[in-house]
């Protein structure tokens, strides 16, 4: 199987055996309660220099409250899995937390552009689906997966992908390197205290993120009983043994939506987008991150009960989002 062409970018070391050893030694094989606060979970599980993945984004069923906590705790030198995201990635870079991004799609405002020019931020190029495929390889315990896209692009040379000769068809085919992120943040509709979690509706790669990542924080709109999980096992998107922390985060995706639970808050979305396009999140971070000490306080003081009632009311569709 000849290698025809190789990307030149640095990529997270491919080490399925190291990941297996981590899973054996550090993942909670037995069912143990993992309920903790945002602060505890991020203090315990997000470390400076981590490769970090989060599923969905700041506007759609994303772990917005956990991302705010990561910024609040001033984590540093994170390497971001920048798939299907917008301001979340920009917030992490402008919040001083991240300096490397594997790009599928991000909100690339003037601030990140400047950071790149000033060599304060490194970019590697992929696509959204190539990034989710890399996570899938990681979630299958494999070093790589083949793909039939991404070849021929200028991104390829700036990635960790390879073009090889397929030993079966003798045709050229792309290989993508697995990612096993150091930490993943995933927001779900429901989880039990052990981390058995349910996502309703479509998603990006929540199961892949959970199974591929060394440390997994699940934030959930609702904490349900394990009895409830067992009542409909086909609905379990993420198994407990992949999860290291469960955080109860009602409205955790605010200002974004959680399908079937609440709508987005358009002014809140516009406020974040505007700050990103202006290339100045200072005001936004002060108001939405630094002015409060916790997600609970954020809901109380910044979002407010009326807004919460409104976004609940505006989400009129329940069909398919409850059991």
């Amino acid at each position, binding site marked *: 199987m000849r290698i025809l062409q190789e990307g030149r970018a640095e990529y997270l070391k491919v080490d399925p055996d190291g990941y297996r050893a981590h899973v054996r030694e550090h993942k909670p094989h037995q069912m143990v309660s993992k309920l903790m606060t945002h602060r505890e979970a991020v203090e315990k599980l997000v470390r400076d220099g981590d490769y970090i993945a989060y599923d969905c984004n700041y506007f759609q069923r994303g772990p917005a409250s956990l991302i705010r906590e990561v910024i609040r705790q001033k984590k540093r030198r994170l390497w971001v899995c920048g798939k299907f995201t917008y301001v979340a990635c920009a917030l992490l870079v402008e919040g001083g937390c991240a300096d490397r991004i594997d790009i599928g799609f991000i909100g690339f405002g003037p601030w990140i552009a400047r950071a790149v020019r000033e060599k304060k931020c490194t970019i590697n190029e992929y*696509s959204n*689906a190539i990034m989710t495929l890399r996570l899938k390889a990681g979630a299958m315990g494999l070093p790589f997966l083949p793909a039939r896209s991404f070849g021929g692009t200028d991104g390829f040379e700036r990635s960790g992908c390879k073009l090889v000769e397929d030993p079966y068809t003798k045709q050229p085919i*792309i290989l993508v390197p697995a990612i096993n992120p150091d930490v993943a943040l995933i927001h779900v509709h429901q989880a039990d205290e052990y981390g058995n979690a349910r996502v309703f509706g*479509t998603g990006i790669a929540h199961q892949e993120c959970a199974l591929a990542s060394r440390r997994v924080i699940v934030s959930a709109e609702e904490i349900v009983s394990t009895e409830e999980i067992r009542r409909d096992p086909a609905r379990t998107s993420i198994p407990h043994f992949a999860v290291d922390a469960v955080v109860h985060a009602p409205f955790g995706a605010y200002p974004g939506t959680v399908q079937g639970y609440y709508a987005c808050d358009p002014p809140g979305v516009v406020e974040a987008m505007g700050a990103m396009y202006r290339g100045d999140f200072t005001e936004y971070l002060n108001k939405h991150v630094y002015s409060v000490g916790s997600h609970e306080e954020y809901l109380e003081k910044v979002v407010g009960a009326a807004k919460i009632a409104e976004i609940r009311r505006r989400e009129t*569709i329940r069909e398919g989002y409850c059991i």
Partner: protein
Amino acid sequence: MSTPAANFNEREHVICQIARLVEERYIYWVGGGGEPLSAALLAKQVHAPNLQYLTEDGVVGPEPLVPFDPLMTMIAARANYRALQWQTMNYAADVAHLGYVDYGILATLQVDRYGNVNSTVVGKYEGGEGRRFGGPGGADTIAALAWRTILVTDQQKRKFVERNDFISSPGFLDGPGARERAGLPPGTGPWRVYTPWAMFGYDIDCQLMLQGISPFVTVDQVLEEMSFRPKIAPKLERLEVPTEEELMVLRTKIDVAGQVTDRGRWIEHRDGKYVFADR
């Protein structure tokens, strides 16, 4: 209701062109916003109620409840309402790998002679000097795996270039056979490029060819807004202006806030001709 409109803007015009291509017998993967999604939603409202499309989040064949909240085009209850299947991104990519996606519809910052797609940078990539954008997102998967790709962009000199500043997603790359050499499935590639002023196809040598023109511009105006001279079809198709019905649906059900269409110049019908309105 299908009377030609007397007042519309360039964006509305190009969305209608693309919407009219959409047929119920094909499966579409539509870029999750802007003109591509607006065109699909318009088609579904106006002439193709059974249209089936996918978006990046793995939704299959939704019956969307329009209009959507701003940016809520994927992983959102109204956008994904009453779908045939809810899955995730890797599933959408699998379906495209398998050859189920007949058409992809995409917006691009630039298009070159070979129909390559740029959503990464305008200007120089190295050193971050150029103006940087979000990246390929889902476009690379669509452009690589859909049987036919429809691109939409603006008719501007800096957008029609000899070679894109960056190839984020593959067109014909540098010509016949290049896609296959790069590991992409044979028989796929760009099919049309639409701008508010014109429609382009591709010659057998994979090069862009002017095939249609809007009634409010001349061929020379189009060529002036290109950095290279494309091939020109012997006979040019006339791109019919939006109908009142299309505009009504677009303005009242799809792009209510004008987020997609509030750009570009206005056209009016004056003295039996379509001309740019002086505003």
